[in-house]
C-alpha cells in the first residue's frame, strides 16, 4: 500500500508522528482535490509523491519562516573546492557506529533541500530522474544535492561521535586531555 510510503516519507522528513499524520492527511486531501488534473503523463506514483513532497516542503518552509529553494545552502568552503577540515580521522570512522536513531537525528538537522533529496534517494530508493521530476529540478541538481547532503550528514554524525567520546572520557575521569 502506497499510503505507507507517503506516511513514511512524511515521517522521515519531519521527524515526528503527529506532524507526519497531518502531512499524510494533507497529501491525500490534495490527491482528492487534484485527481482530475492527473493526465497520465507521468507514473501515478511519481505524481502522488511529487504532491506529497510538495506538501512536506511547504511545511518545512513555513517552519523555517522563509522560502527555501533546492539551490539553498551551499557550503562556503565547497565553493573554494578545498577540504573543510581534517576529514576521515581513523578514530572518527563512522562505519559500524551509525544506527537509525543517530542517522534520523542527523537527517533532521539537514536543510530542506538536502533532506528531501537524501530521503527520497538513499532512504526511499527513488532514482535521480524520478526525484528531478518530483522536485522540479535537474538530474544534475539532484545528484549534487545528494552528495552535499551525505557530506553534511558525515559531519553531523562525526560531531556526534566526538561529543560522545568527550562524554565517555569525562565519565571515565580522563577529561584532562583535550582531543580537539
Amino acid at each position: 500500500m502506497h499510503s505507507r510510503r507517503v506516511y513514511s516519507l512524511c515521517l522521515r522528513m519531519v521527524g515526528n508522528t503527529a506532524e507526519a499524520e497531518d502531512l499524510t492527511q494533507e497529501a491525500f486531501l490534495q490527491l482528492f482535490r487534484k485527481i482530475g488534473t492527473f493526465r497520465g503523463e507521468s507514473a501515478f506514483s511519481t505524481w502522488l509523491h511529487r504532491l506529497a513532497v510538495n506538501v512536506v516542503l511547504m511545511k518545512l518552509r513555513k517552519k523555517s519562516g522563509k522560502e527555501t529553494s533546492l539551490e539553498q545552502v551551499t557550503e562556503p568552503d565547497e565553493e573554494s573546492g578545498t577540504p573543510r577540515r581534517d576529514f576521515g580521522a581513523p578514530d572518527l570512522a563512522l562505519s559500524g557506529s551509525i544506527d537509525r536513531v543517530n542517522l534520523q537525528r542527523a537527517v533532521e538537522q539537514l536543510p530542506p533541500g538536502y533532506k528531501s533529496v537524501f530521503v527520497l534517494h538513499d532512504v526511499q530508493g527513488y532514482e535521480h530522474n524520478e526525484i528531478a521530476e518530483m522536485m522540479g529540478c535537474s538530474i544534475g541538481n539532484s545528484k549534487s544535492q545528494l552528495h552535499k547532503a551525505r557530506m553534511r550528514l558525515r559531519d553531523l554524525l562525526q560531531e556526534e561521535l566526538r561529543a560522545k567520546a568527550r562524554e565517555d572520557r569525562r565519565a571515565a575521569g580522563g577529561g584532562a586531555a583535550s582531543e580537539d
Partner: protein
Amino acid sequence: MATMGCNEFLKQLEGWMEGERGAEARAHVKQCAKCSALVADLDAIQDRAHAWGAEEAAPPDRVWVSLRAQLESEGLIRDAAVAELEPAAGARRGWRAGFFGAPRPVLAGAYLALLVTAAIALTGPSTRQLDEKRWMTGTQDTTGALSAQLDSAEKSTISAMAVSDPVVTASLHDNLAIVDNYITLCEKSVREDPENEIARDYLYEAYQQKADLLEQMTERGVSGR
C-alpha cells in the same frame, strides 16, 4: 602512473559515489587513508539509510477517519446521498468497509477512495520480481474471461433495472461508472507494469467490486426499490 591528490579526488567524489571510478581515483583511495576513510563513511551512511528505508510504518486509522471527515465537509465524497441506497442487510464488509473506518461500504465515496488508493498502489516502484511470462499466460486469460462475464452480467442487469425507481437507477448507474473507471485505471496500470503484483490484486478487487455492485443492482431491479 601518478596518482591524484586529495583535493582532486574530492572534486571527483560525487562521481565516485555514482559509480564513476577511474583508475587514478581508485589508486588514490587505495593509498590515501583519509580519502579511504571518507569513502567508507559515505558508504556506511548509504547502507544505513537503505536499511532505514526498509522500515515502513502504516499511518494510523485516525488519519483516514479525519481525511474522510474533511472530504465530506468539502463535498468531495458523497456519503449521506448514497447511504440510503444501501441494503439494510447483506452489505458486504471486509477491507473496503474499513478503508475510512465506515460502518458499511458507501458506494460513491468508498469507490472514489478505492480508485485513488488503487491508483497509488498500482503504479509505485515495484521491487517484486515476478515471472512475466507466467503472468501473461495465466493472469491475462483469467482477467479476460472475468471481464467478458462482467460485461454480459452488466447488460442483463441494466435491462432489469429499467423497471425500478429511476432515482435509484440513476444513482446506481453513477456508481457503476465509478467502478468502471476504477477497472479501466487498474487495467491500464497492469498493462503498463505487468510485474506489479499489487496492481494485479487491485484489478481482481475491481472486478469483484463490479460483480458486487451488479448483484446489488439486480436485487434492486427485482425488488423495485
